[in-house]
Structures are given as structure tokens and as C-alpha cells.
């Protein structure tokens, strides 16, 4: 693989995007690539907009993904998908968890939550949306929605299903391995 691959994970602080980046980091290392990840801590974690960059390849220089360069953008919330969509490169995959979390600016009436985000983004980008919360409920555990989203995103990366399941088993708490693997497969086979 000559080209460095650029993945972004965006969402709202507290949604648990860090677990997704840990699984992603794990599978990249297993495959033997050089990898750099960059994430946000501190003030921005408190319900703010959060973004994690993951880059891998033969030799990675900078730790961030820049505008117009992401191969895959994984958005855990619709508004955040809209905020960061321009980071995608032409032809890049935009995976959206179809969930709405109102920012305080919307709650207090200062701003309006945009309508038809997914439809609008679909005009410019290759969008793959999933209502992961609903799918997770069907599995009987609302907390595994992250791995459903990751499963959808995994369709646009070059790692085998077996490797994904293996890394999930090594990363999540032992008691939750089975349900997390199931959740991943729901997304992966969508």
C-alpha cells in the first residue's frame, strides 16, 4: 500500500468515539502498518464536537487528516457529519449514524438544527447511513451502536472480517465480546 489511508471519526463528546479509534488502531497495528492517531482531550470533551484522526501506511508523517483528504469519514451524529464532510476526498465514503443530538445553541434557540442533512450530503458525497441506535435495540443492547457504525465503515477498508472480530475481542470488556461482534456484523453485512 503506497498511499497513506486517512480515516476520521467525528461525534459529540461522551458518545464513546474513543473505543472506535482504539479498535481501529488495533487492527492497523495487527496488519503491520505505521500508524498515527490524534484525538481531542480536555475542554472539548464536555459535550462538544470531537474529532479523531487515524492515518496508516508504509510511513506516516503528520498525525492529522486535512481538508479534502479523508478516505472514510465516520460520523456518529448527523450535524457532525455536515460539519466535517468537506474533509472527504473526492470519492471518499461518508458513514453516518442517523442520530440527532441538539447542541446547546439549538436548545436555547440561538441556532436551528439543519433539516434533511443526509439527503443534502448525498448530493455531493457517497453517503452510507445507518440508524445504529435502532439496530442496537434489536440486539437488545443500546450501548453497542458504535460497533454497528464501525461495521458499516469497515466495508470501505481493506481488513478481513476475521481480523476485525479478533481485534474487537481483544479490545472490548470480556463479557461483552459476543454482543459487540454481533453488532459489528450487523453493520458489516448491511
Amino acid at each position, binding site marked *: 500500500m503506497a498511499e497513506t489511508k486517512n480515516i476520521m471519526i467525528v461525534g*459529540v*463528546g*461522551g458518545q464513546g468515539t474513543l473505543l472506535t479509534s482504539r479498535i481501529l*488502531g488495533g487492527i492497523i*497495528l495487527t496488519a503491520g502498518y*505505521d*500508524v*498515527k*492517531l*490524534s*484525538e*481531542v*482531550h*480536555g*475542554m*472539548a*470533551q*464536555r*459535550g*462538544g*464536537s470531537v474529532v479523531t484522526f487515524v492515518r496508516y501506511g508504509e510511513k*506516516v*508523517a*503528520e*498525525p*492529522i487528516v*486535512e*481538508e*479534502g483528504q479523508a478516505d472514510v469519514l465516520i460520523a456518529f451524529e448527523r*450535524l*457532525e457529519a*455536515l*460539519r466535517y*464532510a*468537506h474533509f*472527504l476526498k473526492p470519492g471518499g465514503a461518508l458513514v453516518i449514524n442517523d442520530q440527532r*443530538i*441538539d*447542541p*446547546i*445553541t*439549538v*436548545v*436555547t434557540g*440561538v*441556532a*436551528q*438544527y*439543519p433539516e434533511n442533512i443526509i439527503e443534502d450530503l448525498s448530493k*455531493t458525497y457517497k453517503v452510507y447511513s445507518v440508524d445504529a441506535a435502532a439496530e442496537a435495540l434489536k440486539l437488545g443492547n*443500546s450501548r453497542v451502536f458504535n460497533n454497528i457504525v464501525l461495521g458499516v465503515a469497515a466495508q470501505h477498508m481493506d481488513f478481513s472480517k476475521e481480523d476485525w472480530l479478533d481485534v474487537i475481542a481483544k479490545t472490548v470488556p470480556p463479557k461483552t465480546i459476543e454482543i459487540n461482534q454481533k453488532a459489528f456484523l450487523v453493520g458489516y453485512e448491511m
Partner: protein
Amino acid sequence: MSEKKVMLGNEAIARGAYEAGVKVSSAYPGTPSTEISENLVKYPEVYCEWAPNEKVAMEVAVGASISGVRAMASMKHVGFNVAADPMYTAAYIGATGGLVAVVADDPGMYSSQNEQDTRQICRAAQVPVLEPSDSQEAKDFMKLAFDLSEQFDTPMVLRTTTRLAHSQGVVALEDRVVPEDKPYERNIAKNVMMPGNAIKRHVFVEQRLKDMAEAANTLVVAKEGFSKDVPLNRVEMNDTKIGFITSGIPYTYVKEACPNASVLKLGLVHPLPKKLIEEFASKVDTLYIFEELEPVIEEQVRAWGIDCIGKEAFTVQGEYSANMIRKVVLKEDLSINTPAKVPARPPLLCPGCPHRSVYTVLNKLKIHAAGDIGCYTLGAVAPLSVVDTTICMGASISSLHGMEMAKGKEYIKNWVAVIGDSTFMHTGVNSLMNMVYNQGTGTVIILDNSTTGMTGHQDHAATGKTLQGKVVPAINIYHLCKSMGIEHVTEVNAFDIKELEKVIKEEVARDAVSVIITKSPCALLKEVHFPNKCVPVPEKCKKCGMCLKPGCPALTKNEDGTISIDATMCNGCGLCKNLCPFDAIEEVAK
């Protein structure tokens, strides 16, 4: 051994300190430096502690160095201001055991109140600075810093930025090598900084900096304890049309955007290697200085009469990127899609946060708050909009006192100071002493959530636990305030809004210093469990909006004016339920 691990920059710094044989580490938490101590404490061979503030941490490290062992302090950039007093003089004393301060800058201000550049302070303090570019170098440079500290008899600073501190990269691990403790020798001329001695040490400091600058020309390379040689400053000659002088994270942007350009990568960013820079500059057609924040390298290079392009092309604010080089240097048309116009999503207090309860009462009473540094700074954000000022750690109490001394006690009758427990222990306590001593009449609310919240839950002297997790006697904030002679110190449950309102009204009216300690642990602490959760009862709802006033993110207003409560976000603190005049919110078991 050549085990490889993906490590956070801060984790790699801790690993480097461990491998370098560091024996003592002291720190106060501050984003983006906190994880250094949190990782270093995993090595039981190293003594690690949280200090009440960075000045204390630095002094602990200086003492340990004088006693002959390798020692360090770590802090964020503004913490370095607090530690500046010992650092400026430690520069004169030098180092017996290697002495390193790790200081983390925050370009872009992800979690800080200003954007200062640590290199400027280090130039003023005459302390050398190393700056790594990735996790591997963070580890290597940490070890180099201890070597250089001992070789040149100087404290060293390892400067990082948020991007380095919170990026992960592959790191090759090596073994810990502990140098033998230096025997203690009484040396009053070196270690007692009074005028007669300091005058002579200043001569040494000036010469030391010249010696280091000279040595930096010839690419210092570490020998022992490394799996490979580590060049301090590195010349990468390629195409000579464009040359960059750069360091730290910006170096990675240069390599990304211009892999074929020539680069002088500085590891030692103060003092600068003049000959090396002159030589490099003479070989390239156009020389760019690519450094985040202040033109520290650029101004020195220009002072030597070398022509270069720096801040006229690149900003002094925020983080840099490879795209910046593509646009400015390569004049590429990046044809990036226009970012969508979207509502901002600022950070806010978490659901169940006890600060929200206190601020809801202050908001109701129309009381202004002189604020401080912590999660509770977010009380400045709508809809709470209670915090009127935020300056630096501990400034809430002292700035309120300043207002009173300027305008008289009536002026602050609708003001309080708000400060967290950790910040109070950091430097708030001094400010309170001043208020007592100088006969102020201010009301101080200590928001005691039993932790250092914003930085991710670190213990401090008033929590009763050390960095190692050892249970120790906690300093009692109530008794500490009482011991200053403050008559009116009241402890209130932060969620008891009726009692809180009564106490605040009483205390702000009082013509004497008073302290209100609002107690309730941070909602994110593992041991915090509210048994119930809140659910709306729409048929009782009169759509008055009282419950929305605290700005809890779990609550949203429906189109018909009633409310919804997100069951996964609500942690059951009951604040909205207690505010509702119509019993239209009830608590049910989780």
C-alpha cells in the same frame, strides 16, 4: 529488546523519563500535559506525586536534582508561569542530577485561556529547550534532555504541543538505565542564590548558553541507552529550491506537503546553532521558517542578517497544517469543498454536574460570579451566563477583592467568587488569605466536587488520595478556611437548591468574608450513582420552561413546548424535577 507499542505523546514522554532513570516526578494536572504523570505512575520504580501547583512541583524537582538524582516536573504552558519563579533561579543553580521540566503549549487553545509560547519564557529564563516531532522522538528527547542537563549543568525544558501530546505513534521500547546517584557535596556558591553567589553564577549561565549553541552546530548525538543514534538537529538536504527551518509537529507538515524539499529540523530550539543555520540558508534558494505560535526562531535568524520568509506568510495563531504549505509555498489550488454553515457545538457542563445546580441558583438571584479555571468556567455560557470573569488559577477570589477595594463593599453585594476545590488548593488559598488579611467582605463559593474535574479526575491534597491511589489524611477545606479566622464557613449540598439560595442570600449580604462550600462529587466519578432517572409527565406540563433554564443537555424542548429527557444522557440528579413547579417531571428507578 525491541518491543514496539503505539503510544500517546505523553505516554512516550513518561516512558522516556522511566528509561532515563528518573527517580522523582512532581506535577499539577493541566491539559495537555496530564497523562505524563498518569503514565509515569505505572512504573513503581519512579516516585510520582501531584503537587498543589506547578511552583511546588518545580521546587520538588529542583530539590531532588540537588540531592543527586534525575528529577522532573510537568505542566501546561500557563502552569509554567506559576513555576517561573523557581525555574528562573534553577537556571543559575544548574543541575546535579538531571533536571527536566516538560511544558505543554496549546496552539489553537483547545483547553486553555491563552496561547503563549513556552520558548519565549525559556529564552528569558536562559533555559535550553528540546522539541520532539512524534511519540518516538518524545521518548528519545526526554532521555537526551536528562543527558544534556547533566552534561551542561542546566535545567532543560522539553516543549510539547497539544497535537504531539495527544497524538499516538509507534515507539520502540528500551530498558531503564539508572545512573548512579551523585554524592551530595555542600556547595554554597552554587546552591545558595544570594547576590554574591548569583552574580558569579550569572556569568556561568551566559557562558553555558554560548557553549550549548556551539555544541548544537555539530549535531549532538546520544550514545548510551539508545537503540540508535539520535541527532539533535538534523539537516535533510534534497531539492535546494525550497528550504525549511522547522521543529516539532510542524516538521511533520513539511514532510507531508514537501517531501522533496530541504529541511533543517531543529531538536534543540533554544539556543540556536548559528553556523548550522547560516550554512543551511546559504544552500537553499528560498528559506521558510515554519514554526507555530511566535516567531522565536525567525527573529533570531533575521537578526543574523539571513533572509527568510516567516510570519508574513504563516499565522502566529492556532495550529499549522500541510495544506497551509500547499497553499502558501506550493501555490496549489486545493479545490476543497466549502465547509457547511452549521450551528456551533460548544462544550458544556455534563448532565448531573453539581456546578449546574449552583449556577442555576446564582442565575435566579442575578448574582455575578468572578470565575476561575476548571469545568465551571463553562458557567459563562448561555443559558446559565453566570460567570463574568476568568483570568487564571486562583484569580476569582483575588479579583473579587480588587473590585471591592476599588468600588467599596456595596459594589460586590451581588457578586461572588466561584472556585473549584482543586483550584482552591492550587492558588485560591493565597487569595483567600489576602481577602481575610485586608478586611474584604467578599463571598467565596468553593465548588467542591472532590476532584480535579476538567483534566480528567486527578486527586489533590483535599481528596485524601495520592497519585498512587494511596489513602492519606485529606486536608479539610472547611477547617482550612476556619483556621484563617473566617467566622462564616457553610457547607451545603450542591443539589439542595432551597438551602443554597437561602445561604447565598445571607452570605452576600454579610459585611464580612464568608465561604460557602458546595459539596457534591463530579457526576463522572465512578462512585457517583443516582438511583433514579428523570422522566417528563407531559399531561402536567405547563410549558413554562423552568426545567430548561439550567441548560442540561439531556433535556430538549419538543415542538409543542413540552420537553423530552434523553434517557441515556440523564443521570438522575433531579435538578430539573426540583425546579418544576407543576410536578411535571418525576423520578423513576433506573
